């Protein structure tokens, strides 16, 4: 089958182009548009009728002159050319080179909208990844094949944390490196630059594939970008047997682009103007991470989601949380107190931690230490709250101990250097120093054996 070309564009609005008289065009097909100034744009068929076709134009539909625009239907889906050469390269949201170098030449091209992974083909992710960050490793561990977003907000150091994770992530007993897929949607030039310099200075640039759509690049392209990037990630993981860490930033920009197009299409909005299918759309992206039976590689996904007005119940973080396997939540309060990384552990969670830590993976006391720290911190935060109402002087001695614990915990466990790469044992040691502030009887989540082995407090 071959490409067909038409000059019958009937309307162009909000990134959508209607073409009349095009017959037998397949749903989802790739489209090239040449406007009156001979500039090329790209698109995809999102509604295919007998004689009217609706095309989503990735570069937008601004100043398209309908009369003199050529629309070419390529008779193929949106695809990405794949070869090991993609490492070390920079592409745009459609997988076209953005680094001034020639396109990837390969006979292997894959449609970017992969079919859903058969659940029966998956294996459960359970290999602990040491990120060197205590709040993650100790309390919300990341495992290979997990999708674990960073929930952040404007002005918080999510980029620095993401970069630190990329720099430090490793498996405990394996000298294997992650290949990195970096997907940037609507980020500022300086943020993109920050990551590029990070990758360069840590010497991993040759092991990174970047997909970049800047804040002033066409928003509609952001809809294709994560799918293109994940197609590359899956290729690296499941064809080339690599462990791939995908960092996506910022999913909020992605969802906003989706809303823009949905509104133009006249889709029924659900919450805050976002279309009802935002959940399914995000799930199509996030669920592409994982491990697959009999495959060596894996796709681990760390998306950055900024919470509009710091609101975790906003549809974008909310729906993300409903899909991903936990979340690392950054706090403006900790940040204001100068604590880096400002991870607020209470709303943070890793659902896959349960099978990735403990005796065979990290250390036998790890899951119980985590539960104990959480229990104490929850109580400590209540106490801190109480102290702010009635004054610390009114607290009992027992309560004051919790208050000190909260401060020490924030300072020593949460806080660490941006270059500080703590081993899991170091993280657990800090944890036991903090636990040892309490009498043994207050530690009911750890076992008596744990206490005998690791407790070194003075209390009875």
């Amino acid at each position, binding site marked *: 089958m071959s490409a067909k070309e038409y000059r019958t564009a009937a309307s162009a609005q909000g990134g959508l182009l209607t073409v009349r008289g095009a*017959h*037998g065009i*397949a*749903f*989802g*097909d790739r489209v090239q548009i040449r406007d009156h100034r001979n500039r090329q744009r790209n698109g995809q068929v999102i*509604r*295919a*009728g007998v004689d009217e076709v609706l095309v989503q134009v990735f570069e937008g539909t601004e100043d398209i002159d309908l009369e003199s625009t050529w629309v070419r239907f390529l008779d193929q*889906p949106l695809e990405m050319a794949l070869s090991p050469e993609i490492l070390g390269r920079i592409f745009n949201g459609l997988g076209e080179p953005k680094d001034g170098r020639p396109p990837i030449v390969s006979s292997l091209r894959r449609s970017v*909208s*992969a*079919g*859903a*992974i*058969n*659940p*029966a*083909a*998956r*294996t*459960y992710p359970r290999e602990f990844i040491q990120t060197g960050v205590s709040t993650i490793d100790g309390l919300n561990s990341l495992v290979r094949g997990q999708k674990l977003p960073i929930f952040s907000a404007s002005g918080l150091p999510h980029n620095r944390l993401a970069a630190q994770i990329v720099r430090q992530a490793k498996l405990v007993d394996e000298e294997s490196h992650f290949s990195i897929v970096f997907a940037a949607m609507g980020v500022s030039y300086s943020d993109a630059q920050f990551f590029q310099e990070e990758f360069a200075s840590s010497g991993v640039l040759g092991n990174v594939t970047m997909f970049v759509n800047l804040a002033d690049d066409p928003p509609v392209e952001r809809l294709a970008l994560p799918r293109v990037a994940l197609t590359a990630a899956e290729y690296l993981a499941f064809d080339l047997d690599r462990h791939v860490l995908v960092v996506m930033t910022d999913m909020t920009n992605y969802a906003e682009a989706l809303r823009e197009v949905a509104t133009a299409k006249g889709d*029924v*909005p*659900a*919450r805050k103007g976002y279309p*009802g*299918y935002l*959940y*399914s759309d995000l*799930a*199509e992206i996030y*669920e592409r991470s*994982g491990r*697959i*039976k009999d*495959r060596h590689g894996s796709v681990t996904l760390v998306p950055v989601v900024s919470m509009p007005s710091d609101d975790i*119940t*906003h549809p974008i973080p*909310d729906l993300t*949380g*409903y*899909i991903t*396997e*936990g979340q690392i939540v950054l706090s403006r309060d900790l940040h204001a107190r100068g604590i880096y990384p400002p991870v607020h552990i209470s*709303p943070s969670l890793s659902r896959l931690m*349960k099978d990735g830590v403990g005796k065979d993976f990290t250390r036998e006391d790890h*899951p119980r230490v985590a*539960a104990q720290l*959480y*229990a104490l911190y*929850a109580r400590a935060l209540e106490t801190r*709250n*109480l102290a702010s*109402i009635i004054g610390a002087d*009114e607290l*009992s001695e027992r309560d004051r101990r919790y208050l000190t614990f909260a401060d020490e915990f924030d300072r020593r466990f949460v806080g660490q250097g941006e270059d500080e790469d703590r081993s899991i044992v170091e993280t657990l040691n800090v944890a036991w120093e903090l636990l040892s502030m309490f009498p043994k*009887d*207050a530690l*009911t989540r750890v076992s008596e054996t744990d206490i005998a082995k690791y407790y070194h407090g003075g209390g009875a």
Partner: protein
Amino acid sequence: MSEKVKVGRIQEINGPIVTVELAGLRNGEQVRIGEIGLVGEVIALDGPRALVQAYESTEGVRPGEPVRGLGHPLAVELGPGLLGSIFDGVQRPLATIFSQSGDSIPRGLDIPSLDRGKRWAFTPNDALELGTTIAGGSILGTVQETGAIEHRILVPPLLSGELTELAPAGEYALDDAIGRLRTPDGQTHKLFLYHRWPVRTARPYLRRDHAVEPLITGQRILDTFFPLLKGGKAAVPGPFGAGKTVVQQQVARWSNADIVIYVGCGERGNELVDVLETFPELHDPYTGRRMMERTLLVANTSNMPVVAREASIYVGVTLAEYFRDQGYDVVMLADSTSRWAEALREVAGRLGEMPVEEGYPAYLASRLAAFYERAGRVKTLAEKTGSVSLIGAVSPPGGDFSEPVTSHTKEIIQTFWALSKELADARHYPAIDWTSSFSAHVSSAARWWAENIDPAWEAKRAEALKLLARDAELARIVNLVGPEALSSAQRWELEAAALVKEGVLQQSALDAVDTFASPQKQFLLLDLILTIYEKGADLVQIGVPVQELVGLPLLARARRLKQVYGSEQITDLQAFMDEIRAEFDRIRLEYAKFQEHAAT
């Protein structure tokens, strides 16, 4: 199928919604779309046109391609081979598809739900005599499907007549006839080990019975505080990460149902893998058999096509009713009904239907009610007793329980296990909030507990809830005026409430010992902790300083009891009761001596 296949043409493709020109289709009819043969279903008729929703991605399909109407609605295959399997939202066998087609699910597959090659050892029902009239739903014989479950082969519910042939014991494949039946109009029907049933039609039964017996789940906050009866309906609402899936998986693991149907409806792939990988290793505490032998999974994960998600809960509940009709107690878990409702909304939106609240169509509430109505304890057509308990997770946007799906569901169900973000953030698991949860089954459950465990159950339960309510009240006072304002008795109440929370309510699904607690253990733990509370309160009353009680090592031990002693170590728990009594008697005595001393 003998019905004539109708063929038409595609007019338009709009995501999963396809307009076709084909007269004579019926609403709900199954179709095959395009050259590739995607499976779909008719959802609206408009003269010679029909709107069809595809259960698979329509990428690459073109207007002008053919569409075939199959003449029947979405139906499931019911027979041996269901248990231990994983199906997608329209009952395609995912493990088979994986072994035939690899990592992702190819489109347009035509593959039977149940394995046709496998032969099953069939034992005919001795009680049946040839020539007698048998009714739909009668038991023709049995197949020992798994070690745990005897599969009872049923006459299709709507068929009845004279039994003219019944195969002898032997090995049969699903397509081998195992009997014949002549209907009153003289037609002869072959009977097989399996039959089909349309998923959107509830299966018939003789009559509904009252639910009487609690579904024991081994989870204290559920069984002891907010019980569900076999045949009841429950909802588990909660924000993301609060523990809906864990609650449902715990019920799937530890409940005393005969059959468990777990429907992953628009949720994570890895959660189903978790069940698939762990259940074969776990043992059913009641039968000792492997848990997978009584379990069946329906998986339409969040990244799978939305339309099949809408179908998946009907597939699940039809499978549940089928096992009920064999005389089993079935529990079906749907995670999450919100994703099902969203699928409904998405389709309604594409049809241009008028949205009423948050984009949902007006019929949301009635569809939800109709779904839950399929729960119940019944006398089956074969005069056996069976039940379907339905437990649906609800995922309210932003954790807001006033949204449409949660609020409508709340009107329908009898048991409400409300998860709270605050409790989950504090790692109080299960994060079921005792103030907003409820059960309409407490008095029925109380009869069972009184007969089987202890007559004091209802009173103890009430006492614990009262203590928790006092705790909330006192916490408010502390937050206003500080802890110094509390009396000694009130401080002891706070301490005791903390004990109830930690020692009874909190129960880690991840703790090897505490993950399951027998009713006996549940009652004992509650009794022990309330005894500490009462004895302590007595001492505080006579003037023993509360600090002395709060510092007792006994309290730390009481907090750990749940994970130290398993359900089989009842005598150790009973021995602890003696220790409590001895310890408090000792303090009373010491205090009396001390006072005597002070007096002299």
